[in-house]
């Protein structure tokens, strides 16, 4: 019997959640057209969830190599700060974007060096930027919240292209580009090999250190772009709150999406579904009148449930149940 694609269960979860919402709130799935743009709750979920999807994209690769990156939230804050300062200083949009994403790449490079070259544990290594990153962001904006009045910049997060919200399209394009990069070249294979059995991959002649470093650099770049989107969304660079809980949401999205925390096989599509699931969960909570600050509670229960299901012990226990049922 062919095994189900790992993205199956998160899709089921997402569908169930959407169904639940549609039943209890008739207007949930309604999409209206206004000024040639599509509006509606599904659009909101896609737009608001696009940032988490983007960070989860980068996080997927890092987790696939058996590591984790806790600094993405702070990197988002730095990137937002860089873009705001560049635009304020009169530089062009392209340069500002390049600098912001570049800052993310640099952060990723630092993490990659610590983990891959110096052998520091990923949690420990990325903790440094997680702590210091926001301070650096505040330093860049000089302690203020910088308002960004720049139409084209705001368009990135709030604009529409051919009737559809631009941010999800942009993130979707990133996913497509990543998929092509990983599956058209051998990079995807290398990442999975290193995560699955690093020793064996070394013996097979793979440059494991380089591949791990690449994963962190890629993750930093994704976080950088996500930081730009976050700043564009609120038209300001808020170094204190930008990317709040971003790392947690991203890790949850990846794990819920079907990529194991121990590394190896990964599914980029699963992370997208996971991110959407978390965003839908947040929206569901909002619709149920749950105060936003309390919304993390079901997230917490969800992640405990998913990790339990993924754990070896439970897997064996379930396997035993299945065997006894079949007998």
């Amino acid at each position, binding site marked *: 019997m062919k095994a189900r694609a790992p993205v199956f269960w998160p899709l089921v979860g997402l569908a169930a959640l959407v169904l639940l919402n549609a039943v209890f709130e008739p207007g949930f799935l309604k999409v209206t057209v206004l000024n040639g743009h599509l509006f509606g709750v599904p659009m909101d979920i896609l737009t608001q969830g696009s940032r988490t999807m983007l960070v989860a994209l980068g996080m997927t690769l890092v987790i696939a190599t058996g590591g*984790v990156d806790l600094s993405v939230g702070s990197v988002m804050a730095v990137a937002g700060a860089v873009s705001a300062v560049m635009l304020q200083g009169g530089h062009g949009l392209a340069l500002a974007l390049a600098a912001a994403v570049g800052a993310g790449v640099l952060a990723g490079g630092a993490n990659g060096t*610590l983990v891959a070259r*110096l*052998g*520091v*544990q990923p*949690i*420990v*290594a990325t*903790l*440094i*930027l*997680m*702590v*210091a*990153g*926001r*301070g*650096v962001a*505040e*330093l860049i904006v000089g*302690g203020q919240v910088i308002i960004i009045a720049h139409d084209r910049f705001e368009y990135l997060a709030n604009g529409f292209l051919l009737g559809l919200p631009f941010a999800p399209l942009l993130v979707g394009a990133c996913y497509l580009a990543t998929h092509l990069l990983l599956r058209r070249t051998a990079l995807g294979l290398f990442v999975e090999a290193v995560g699955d059995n690093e020793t064996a991959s070394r013996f097979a002649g793979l440059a494991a250190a380089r591949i791990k470093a690449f994963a962190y650099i890629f993750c930093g770049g994704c976080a950088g772009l996500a930081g730009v989107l976050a700043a564009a969304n609120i038209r300001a660079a808020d*170094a204190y709150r930008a990317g709040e809980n971003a790392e*947690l949401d991203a*890790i949850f999205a990846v*794990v819920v999406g079907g990529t194991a*925390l121990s590394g190896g096989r990964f599914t980029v599509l699963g992370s997208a579904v996971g991110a959407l699931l978390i965003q839908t969960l947040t929206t569901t909570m909002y619709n149920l009148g749950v*105060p936003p*600050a*309390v*919304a*993390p*509670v079901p*997230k*917490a*229960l969800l*992640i*405990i449930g998913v*990790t*339990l299901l993924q*754990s*070896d*012990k*439970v897997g064996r226990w379930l396997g035993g149940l299945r065997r006894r049922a079949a007998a």
Partner: protein
Amino acid sequence: MNRPHPETAAGPAALRTILRRQLPLVATALIFAALFGTAGFLYDGFFSVRVATGLLADNAFLGITAVGMTLVIFSGGIDLSVGAVIGFTSIFTATLVEKHGVAPGVAWLAALALGAALGAGMGALIHCFTLPPFLITLAGMFLARGVGFWINQESVGITHPVYERISGFELDVGRAFFTANALIFVAVIVAGYVVAHHTRFGRNLLAIGGNEQSALLMGLPIGAAKIGVYAVNGFCAALAGIVATFYTGSGNPSMGVGLELDSIAIVVIGGTLLTGGRGHMLGTFLGVLIFGTIQAAILFDGRLSAWWMRIVVGALLLVFILLQRFFLRKKR
């Protein structure tokens, strides 16, 4: 006849060997001395008893969480929920006392029990199902924070006379004034030191963090130790939450956001290895003092903004992590 091994001979070289063995602790102590000295040199009035005792009082609840965190990190684990537990505890006790007329002592006991219970629950999941500590305690953080906000979205001021008495309490020792918070902090540090260095529980934690496989073969009670340490840490976090309510005179569900990072940073700066098995409670105490000194210096300066704190702590973390890396590599 005894054959002494030159590499381990005790005696006249004792001071040098102590220094060599406790290198991280010595480094931390030197850094604290350097920081405090520099600040005292740069800022008028820094070198005072008031500032020194202020270090203890202002960082009491952070320091208390650092004590529990030290024990957890000894065993090779990590707990990201402590900040959230502080927030939960503060609003929980404040609401009970102010809105429901519960006696403070009862509210405190309930809060401590809940903190320990959450810790034990997380510890059980981590140990029995071999789940990654950072993920489970992350979930715990979300849980505690969310439940805290569910109790009350806004902060609740506390007007109970017991609180006022405690906030106003001061112990005079010569020229120094110790507030209740400072005294509780000192008591917790001392208790933490005793547990870490003079009880089987504490030494078992270090053994488990140092080499869990060996600890298992040596017959140490791993499950009890692991679940126990998370319970103790939850208790400490709840205690810190109570101390926080003394400090601010109110309960606030958003108290302690990001505090777990500071706590972890303090433990690492104090010389404890994040991977477990090595560390000293005295180092954590010095780490709190370092943290407090930097913060006090920034305040004194007036020119530096508060967020410089993040950068300095991050830089210190980097330095200590690299130090730990090279220290370990040399040992091999």
